[in-house]
């Protein structure tokens, strides 16, 4: 039985080293611009950083994937094409792309470069995935976080390219690459500018013991004293409906699918992905080490150790997300 591949995030060179040292099989990262979906201030890699990262990772037999997974602006393709060219030149093991134009460019210009389809492409059915394989030679698809495990099993039975699924971290509950909530509130979106709910439009206001979070001038949540807080995204906003404040889309919670390793293996999943390029290296080291330990135990047929990752997660709670529940 082929072991799962563990794909880990890195938002900076120190986080990359932490991920490699903690047992990642591959690390994914982005350049310091709008070409990737974690375009946060102070985050990401210069070209020199990527060269050093690749050298560090390859010396330890760990792969590096470069995420170039936003949609190029009309009439301004150059930064995205340059990102693909540089990833190939810097010897990345794969690029993670979402846009069909960019996939086409990469397939023609760099036929030897391994192409992965980003979750941002939201390819969730057999026809879409076959199209990406046939048209561009995509070798792996990162599945959107809206599928159940039986959905994934059915999909894998009908396609012949690898699938990668998220197992830990922040949840994007909408169909990824299609969500316009951030654009609505701020004019900026993860799909084009690479950032959902950009920090420039976020304000936190302590109100007595409460904490109000505001996005683009809208108050989207008020956390009571002692209540765990979450990211300031509209999908996890708490709104008053019929006089009752409630989470309408999703509660502040994080994905943790560690208990589903046997089901994911049976469903034919090749690689497991940890979310969190925006997180600090302490998160990366802790979560990657926990998953490494779990995967090693699982590969040996031993019981998966129960590891406490509560302290790391949004809202202080964990969920198996759509994997285990019927979609609302």
């Amino acid at each position, binding site marked *: 039985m082929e072991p799962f591949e563990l794909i880990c995030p890195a938002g900076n060179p*120190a986080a990359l080293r932490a991920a490699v040292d903690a047992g990642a099989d591959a690390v994914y990262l982005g350049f310091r611009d709008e070409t990737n979906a974690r375009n946060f201030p102070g985050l990401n890699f210069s070209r020199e950083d990527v060269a050093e990262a690749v050298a560090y990772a390859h010396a330890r037999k760990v792969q590096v994937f470069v995420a170039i997974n936003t949609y190029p602006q009309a009439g301004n393709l150059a930064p995205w094409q340059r990102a693909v060219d540089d990833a190939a030149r810097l010897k990345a093991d794969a690029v993670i792309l979402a846009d069909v134009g960019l996939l086409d460019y990469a397939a023609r210009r760099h036929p030897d470069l391994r192409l992965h389809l980003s979750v941002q492409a939201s390819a969730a059915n057999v026809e879409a995935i076959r199209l990406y394989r046939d048209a561009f030679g995509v070798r792996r698809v990162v599945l959107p976080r809206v599928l159940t495990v039986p959905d994934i099993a059915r999909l894998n039975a009908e396609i012949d390219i690898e699938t990668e699924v998220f197992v830990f971290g922040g949840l994007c509950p909408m169909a990824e690459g299609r969500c316009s909530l951030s654009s609505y509130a701020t004019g900026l979106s993860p799909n084009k500018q690479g950032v959902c709910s950009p920090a*420039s439009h976020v*304000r936190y206001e302590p109100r007595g013991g409460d904490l109000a979070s505001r996005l683009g001038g809208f108050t989207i949540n008020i956390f009571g004293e002692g209540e*765990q807080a979450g990211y300031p995204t509209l999908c996890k906003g708490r709104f008053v409906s019929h006089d009752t404040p409630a989470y309408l889309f999703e509660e502040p919670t994080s994905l943790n699918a560690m208990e589903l390793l046997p089901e994911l293996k049976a469903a034919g999943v090749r690689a497991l992905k940890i979310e969190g390029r925006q997180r*600090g290296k302490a998160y990366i080291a802790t979560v990657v080490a926990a998953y490494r330990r779990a995967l090693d135990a699982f590969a040996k047929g031993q019981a998966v150790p129960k590891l406490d990752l509560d302290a790391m997660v949004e809202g*202080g709670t964990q969920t198996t997300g759509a994997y285990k529940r019927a979609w609302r």
Partner: protein
Amino acid sequence: MRDPGMQTDEPTDDDRARAVEVNLTRAGLRLARQLGDGLGGLLFDRLFRILADRHPRAFAALVELPDARLLIDPVDAPAALLLRVGPQLALRVSERDAQADATVRGPCGRLLDLLEGRIDGDALFFRRELTIEGDTALILALRNTLDGEEMDLFADVATAAGPLRHALPVARRNAGRVLRLLDTAHRLAPPPLRWGLAALERRVAGPRREA
């Protein structure tokens, strides 16, 4: 960094050493406030030069930020710090109510953990151990820049301290061990001896040792 599978309520040697560092930091802030802007400012400039030598990439990034002031408020320390980022990068001791573009508030130990990347800022924020106000992008830029470094404030300063350079990390490691031995002795000792040990412990860790 703690192994998630090995969590216990027992403070580790590292926790104990950190308690010593927190007390040193508090004492440093008190001293800097007493020295005032002149001499205190010189001390901070020296500290900044040491850190800039060790972490040129991070300091270059901080200089490139637009001019802005960030108030760093360790709520359990005698004073706060005002960090000016941008071309006139500087750090000064400050009152807690100083005007700033953004404010980060939290316990001194947590802020040190954050500075050195020992803890994840988002996790601290989720748990409400950290309060942030004002320009969120500025705070994020600073956090991400510092997290990209492998910074160890006390070791960095020790490295610059010439002959002390090997002594400080060893002293810090041993402080953790000594405090652990004291803890054990404390638990096993009869009450009168326990009071004596408590007094000794306070002298090693400072008056407000946190476990």
